[in-house]
């Protein structure tokens, strides 16, 4: 399992990294933790000629928390998310979800930026970010812009990110006081991607749901969120069930996944409601 040949770059600023991406265009990819990209390169599914390693770009690190907003650098690892107590008290669902991703070794290096930028429907963070209604800050040679997580995913491995853009930070509004949360994930074994997963935030007048690995992109539905905010759990579940489109694969037939999606979604809602006050 030897990947193809590439030239290695290690810039230390966003500007320098964006300049390299512009210069090499389609032939270049950025490398974060490498735990999605390197496996794909070993299989030669990905063959970038230039790899731009972001590990030295300090601007992409760190978590900052203000009274109403949380900003997480793209290069923050899952391990760092879990270790951060201030983050866990501001947005506890992030720790709960991160602990269900992969295994300890993968979490030490896998980054939140790589997880959300990758576009793999199996990744857990994209659905979580849709549930939290997060935005992604991206930077390119032409400047910076913000893209809502709910509008970012276009298809499996297709996102709104342009070839020459880098995802720099993830910005989340602090969930409203009194809301409860749950991240519920069904997997075949520890370390596996989801057969189905549900992220839920619920409280008085508040409802947000997103589902993972039940279609080409993570799935959220305005109808489901409105129903949940009004306390109509059956309505919310029905709206989600109408929006998902799981495919049969080695994690099970589509019918099984649909059944499972309903079960874990109800479980997540119940657990989240138990935590709301």
């Amino acid at each position, binding site marked *: *399992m*030897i*990947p*193809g*040949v*590439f*030239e*290695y770059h*290690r810039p230390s600023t966003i500007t320098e990294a964006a300049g390299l991406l512009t210069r090499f265009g389609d032939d270049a990819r950025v*490398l974060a933790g*490498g*735990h999605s990209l*390197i*496996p794909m*390169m*070993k299989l030669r599914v990905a063959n970038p000629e230039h*790899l731009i*390693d972001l*590990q030295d770009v300090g601007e992409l690190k760190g978590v900052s928390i203000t009274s109403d907003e949380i900003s997480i650098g793209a290069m923050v690892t899952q*391990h760092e998310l879990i270790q951060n107590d201030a983050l866990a008290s501001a947005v506890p669902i992030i720790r709960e979800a991160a602990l269900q991703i*992969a*295994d*300890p*070794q*993968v979490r*030490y*290096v896998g980054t939140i930026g790589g997880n959300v930028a990758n576009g793999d429907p199996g990744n857990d963070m994209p659905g979580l970010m849709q549930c939290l209604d997060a935005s992604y800050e991206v930077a390119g040679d032409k400047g910076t812009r913000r893209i809502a997580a709910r509008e970012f995913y276009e298809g499996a491995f297709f996102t709104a990110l342009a070839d020459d853009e880098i995802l720099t930070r993830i910005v989340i509004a602090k969930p409203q006081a009194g809301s409860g949360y749950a991240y519920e994930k069904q997997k075949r074994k*520890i*370390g596996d991607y989801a057969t189905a997963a549900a992220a839920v935030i619920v409280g008085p007048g508040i409802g947000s749901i997103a589902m993972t690995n039940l279609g080409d992109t993570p799935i959220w539905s305005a109808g489901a969120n409105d129903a949940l905010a009004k306390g109509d759990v059956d309505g919310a579940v029905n709206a989600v069930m109408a929006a998902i489109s799981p495919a049969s694969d080695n994690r099970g037939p589509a019918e099984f996944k649909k059944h499972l999606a309903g079960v874990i979604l109800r479980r997540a809602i119940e657990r989240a409601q138990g935590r709301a006050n």
Partner: protein
Amino acid sequence: MSKMHVKMTVNGKEVEALAEPRMLLIHFLREELNITGPHIGCETTHCGACTVDLDGKSVKACTVFVAQANGANVTTVEGLVNDDGSLSVLQEMFREHHGLQCGFCTPGMITRAHRLLQENPNPSEEEVRFGMSGNLCRCTGYQNIVKAILAAAAELNAAREAAQ
């Protein structure tokens, strides 16, 4: 194919070599440096046999390019022995509690367990199982691996208290 100059600290020693950036860290350690403690089991980031300590993190060396480790501090199971070359407490506990049978997974298990105990010197059984979940063993059924790690934690803690 252009090679790059890589420099890193491995088990306390500075090493320098020319290598292709795409070379995997596990191949660099085993084939260039003849450090054969870390094993290649699956080569697909699942089994943990290739686990090494990279700048204080447990990582699967089959999924790291040597270029990424340029400038890093790497420790393998060979680097965990006591200064006089005798087995460390953790290594000794694996022997005493039969934490291995064929031994293939053992270097990865011990290297990972070492970092786990650095971060959490007094883990519960559940925390050990969760913290070791990136390492697979085909022989032991894990029971004795968990026992060995808990015994090492107890012994290290007792030694720490005695030293105070």
